[in-house]
């Protein structure tokens, strides 16, 4: 029997091109501004641009860290894998579990806002007018996406690419026409001076601004399917970071200095600035980009028709990425013995990880119930008002989204520092700037200053989230504690190290990773580094 033909495992085909890799990330991160803009304007008011700038700086650090890690370790698994390899199994689990929270929230939050954007053209879907209809449609979307993923109808990379391209063009047009025809620098300065928020509101706004930058995980998750990942991923990641940062900063500054095409007035007939339509109005918060686009002179007449549709599609794609992202992460965690093997089980007929998909979809539905409850039941609404500062459904989802992202990103920075110290031999085709050379356990290593800055930034956002979000403060840590408990029981049951890590041969693993990635030159470099290091140690020993 020809042994090779029978024993060789099929590998993921490397078919993701540079644009494909970018659009994987963009369909996830690009949708965030559609959600984040309204929320940040509602809370950070005249300092929204500052909130976005602060979150943007942290996001750049996160992006650079992910870029280096994904290019060095092009495997499916993303942040969870990097943290597990850098810090150990239990920290890998915490990071992965936090990402799983984000992905399940991603499903609900983006399905929710997708319906909000649709309501711009279909007023019956406005949450405050028909909460049950809104809830029913969101629930239908979540269940629908779950079923589609179970039967294996996957989103097409081409479709993602086309939608991403249309959205990049659309957002660039909105911003260009907006700045050209409706931007008043004096109004921006005036708004910043007269509507500067309180420190509490600024912290809250900043913690919400980070949700506009969540999703870089997608690029690293697709690393295993990307052509020449070590070369392509740094480019697509840096481009994604820059594009999203440009959009977020431009939108927030435009919104604060925006002179609407048609004057906006409140119930008393007073003129309102554009950003003033968001505070205390969840309906508007959920569709901020569509509202802004519709107010752009000339272009707005056209944009009002297509931006809600494009936004709804992009948000739905992002919601879908939550469904398959959670099952992918659970699969990767399960293969590393961080989760039970049941999450690896594949449906006989459909060949999809059905248990994983259904499990995390159920969690997404539970989150939806918590989010929709205040609008559906007045009694729950008063409960929320009494105990949770009257947070609405969108706030609840955004709180948890920010919490999950800040937690997992904090660990990714620590993982990066850990890997720089413990694995200096892996060739890094992209290295984040500002490094301090030093020696660690006999090896020359470079300590990443940016990772420390990023960690301080994201950790402060995590603190802001815990301090300013009553719901996030309770549900976020509860999610982590429940997960940890589950992990400890599972590891004990499997007789695996509970607080320590399983022994793994990372050298062999890294060679195999680079070989599978087609990065043969890097593989040669890695093998040479290992040999040189071993020879040096042997020389020192004698």
């Amino acid at each position, binding site marked *: 029997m020809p042994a090779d033909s029978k024993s060789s495992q099929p590998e993921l085909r490397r078919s993701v091109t540079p644009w494909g890799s970018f659009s994987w990330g963009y369909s996830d991160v690009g949708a965030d501004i559609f959600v984040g803009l309204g929320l940040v304007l509602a809370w950070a008011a005249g300092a929204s641009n500052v909130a976005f700038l602060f979150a943007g700086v942290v996001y750049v650090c996160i992006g650079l860290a992910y870029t280096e890690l994904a290019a060095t370790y092009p495997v499916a698994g993303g942040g969870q894998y990097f943290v597990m390899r850098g810090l150990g199994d239990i920290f890998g689990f915490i990071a992965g579990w936090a990402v799983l929270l984000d992905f399940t929230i991603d499903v609900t939050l983006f399905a929710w806002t997708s319906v909000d954007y649709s309501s711009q053209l279909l007023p019956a879907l406005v949450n405050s007018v028909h909460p049950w209809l809104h809830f029913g449609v969101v629930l239908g979307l979540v269940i629908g996406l779950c079923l589609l993923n179970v039967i294996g109808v996957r989103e097409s990379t081409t479709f993602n690419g086309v939608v991403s391209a249309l959205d990049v063009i659309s957002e660039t047009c909105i911003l260009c026409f907006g700045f050209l025809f409706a931007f008043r620098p004096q109004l921006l300065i005036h708004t910043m001076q007269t509507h500067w928020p309180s420190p509490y509101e600024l912290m809250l706004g900043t913690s919400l601004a980070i949700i506009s930058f969540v999703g870089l995980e997608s690029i690293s998750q697709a690393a295993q399917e990307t052509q020449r990942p070590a070369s392509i991923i740094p480019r697509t990641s840096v481009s994604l970071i*820059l594009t999203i940062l*440009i959009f977020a900063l431009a939108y927030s*500054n435009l919104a604060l200095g925006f*002179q609407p095409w048609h004057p906006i007035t409140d119930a008393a007939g007073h003129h309102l600035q554009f950003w003033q339509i968001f505070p205390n109005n969840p309906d508007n918060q959920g569709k901020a980009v569509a509202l802004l686009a519709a107010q752009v002179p000339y272009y707005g007449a056209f944009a009002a028709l297509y931006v809600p549709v494009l936004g709804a599609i992009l948000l739905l794609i992002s919601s879908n990425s939550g469904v398959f992202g959670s099952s992918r992460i659970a699969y990767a965690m399960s293969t590393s013995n961080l989760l039970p093997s049941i999450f690896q089980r594949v449906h006989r007929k459909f060949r999809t990880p059905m248990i994983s998909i259904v499990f995390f979809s159920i969690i997404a539905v539970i989150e939806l119930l918590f989010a929709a409850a205040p609008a559906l039941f007045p009694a729950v609404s008063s409960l929320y008002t009494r105990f949770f500062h009257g947070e609405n459904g969108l706030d609840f989802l955004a709180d948890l989204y920010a919490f999950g992202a800040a937690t997992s990103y904090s660990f990714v920075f620590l993982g990066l520092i850990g890997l720089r110290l413990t694995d200096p031999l892996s060739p890094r085709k992209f290295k984040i700037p500002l490094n301090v050379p030093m020696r660690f356990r006999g090896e020359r290593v470079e300590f990443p200053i940016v990772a420390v800055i990023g960690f301080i930034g994201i950790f402060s956002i995590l603190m802001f989230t815990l301090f300013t979000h009553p719901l996030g403060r309770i549900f976020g840590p509860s999610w982590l504690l429940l997960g940890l408990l589950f992990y400890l029981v599972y590891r004990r049951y499997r007789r695996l190290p509970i607080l320590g890590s399983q022994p793994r041969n990372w050298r062999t693993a890294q060679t195999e990773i680079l070989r599978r990635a087609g990065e043969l030159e890097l593989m040669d470099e890695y093998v040479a580094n290992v040999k040189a290091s071993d020879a040096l140690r042997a020389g020192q020993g004698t």
Partner: protein
Amino acid sequence: MSSQVHVTLAGALIALLVAGLVGATLWWMLHPPESYVQRIAAAAERNLERIVGSLIVAFSPEIDSAHMMALAAKLARGERSELLALYVIEVPYTLPPDAEMTLEERAALDALGAAETIANKNNVVIRTETIKARSTKQAVLDVAKREKADLIILGSYREGKYSGAPLGRVIDEIAADAKCDVLIGVEGKHGTLLIDESAQSNSQQA
């Protein structure tokens, strides 16, 4: 309802900046430097354009190119190449150059007829030619020179009279002396290699 437009220098500059930055970022992303492997692949592709401008598929009693004809037709269709099927009848020195060789001529008609059929099926224009010559090698090389051929396609097989030595003397000589590229296809046990032998033997045992 009044409509207001506010064009300011700052706004216009920011608009330009946004468009420029987004455009430049995406352009940079979509133009990564080529890897060593990609440079090799690009060079090979450029070579292909040079190789497949004009093709000759050569036949003779010693050159069995029937199995290569379909490949040549598909190659010619894909690359829009000129295609010539050439049958060479080698006339021994014991006979006059224009001696009648009924069996060989009949074989030539069959081979070229099959070549035409394959070409027609693939929507490729083909020319056919039968030549009598003292040396098959020289005839093929002369026609290649006359046609300014880029590629000569020759076929052979492992079994039969060339058992153990798949390339006959003529094919060796053409490959050695041709001024253009030569593609030689050696048929593997008349195509049976495509079948899983282990499965076949198992089924036979059963």
